[in-house]
């Protein structure tokens, strides 16, 4: 059975992900928020632009820190989703092997409001290429700042694509590991890990955003 993105998006979109009596959304072993893209974009690009005033070293540090936040997101959110009962019930029956986990999680991402992710290419264990036609990061950047003079800006997506490969091919999310700080360090700081690069970005003039993850 192949992965049915439409069915997954419909199922995830139908989950009651709304604040409870405490105003919290506990789901997938996390606390979710349905947050403002404007907020993320404002704070991320204020940091990026401030770094550009300071010089190349500050820029490298800022870009690495913003992508690292994306790694944290991928590890905990994608990892939490892939370990959840909802995944097992909705996505699980569509998966016939490890490689299907990639389109499975990309389908779930398309229910998160991040813009449409499309799987452009997967070489199992080696490379993942994802296209995003309307990432909330590039959309927000263009709306507020116009065409980027500071390069690519989709840091969350960059960290996210690396995270998918690290969870599925560097680590082994299929073995249901505990998502501990030690496991995070093993997946995102150890040898053989995947790192991603945004090779095209709408905010910087490309037709669409494209992120590629390969082993470091």
């Amino acid at each position, binding site marked *: 059975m192949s992965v049915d993105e439409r069915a997954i998006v419909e199922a995830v979109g139908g989950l009651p992900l709304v604040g409870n009596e405490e*105003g919290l959304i506990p789901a997938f072993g996390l606390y979710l*928020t349905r947050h403002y893209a404007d*907020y993320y974009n404002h704070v991320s690009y204020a940091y990026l632009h401030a770094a550009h005033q300071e010089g190349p070293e500050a820029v490298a540090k800022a870009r690495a820190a913003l992508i690292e936040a994306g790694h944290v997101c991928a590890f905990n959110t994608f990892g939490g989703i892939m370990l959840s009962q909802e995944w097992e019930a909705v996505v699980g029956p569509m998966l016939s092997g490890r490689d299907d986990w990639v389109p499975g999680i990309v389908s779930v991402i398309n229910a998160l*409001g991040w813009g449409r992710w499309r799987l452009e290419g997967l070489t199992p264990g080696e490379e993942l290429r994802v296209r995003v036609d309307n990432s909330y990061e590039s959309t927000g950047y263009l709306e507020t700042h116009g065409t980027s003079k500071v390069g690519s800006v989709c840091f969350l997506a960059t960290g996210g694509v690396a995270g998918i490969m690290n969870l599925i091919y560097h680590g082994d999310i299929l073995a249901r590991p505990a998502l501990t700080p030690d496991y995070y360090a093993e997946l995102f700081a150890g040898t053989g890990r995947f790192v991603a690069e945004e090779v095209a970005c709408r905010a910087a003039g490309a037709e669409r955003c494209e992120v590629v993850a390969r082993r470091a």
Partner: protein
Amino acid sequence: MSVPIQFDAERAVVLSGGRSLVFHCHFYNCALQRAIEEGMGERAPKVLTEGAARAIHAQLTGLGDAIEDIPAFAEAAFRELGFGLLDLSGVGARGGAAKVQASHYAMGWTAVHGPRETPACFFPAGFIQGAVAVAHGLPLESVTVEERGCYAAGAEDCVFDVRVSEGEVAR
């Protein structure tokens, strides 16, 4: 849900008042805040608060006449979107005090990084600033919000002083 939301499945975007809403968890929210605080130092609180104030201001402005009672809507939105329980009953056009119980940011920070010495709720502070400004027809910059007690720094709840600049109060 009282927050109007439109999901465009083809584009995979969710809009409210014409502004984009996206799911993210407390790990990411705290990681991003930490990156900004560590990277921007003393400039970080202003950037984090301003980002929140502008975001809620844009959403409320976009929703326009669809909202009759802005403080009630802001409290409902804060809860429904997963940020905790916001109480704006002590805030009027001249300012006052707001409270947040079960703050996503304060509890999230404590869970991920442990307690901190300074308040953690920059997003809630900005959210309150934006909501109060729109509710009372005030310029965004005339409202300032300071968190004087934060769960992440040892307080029971998160409490915010809301001030309106004297020129606006006199009008």
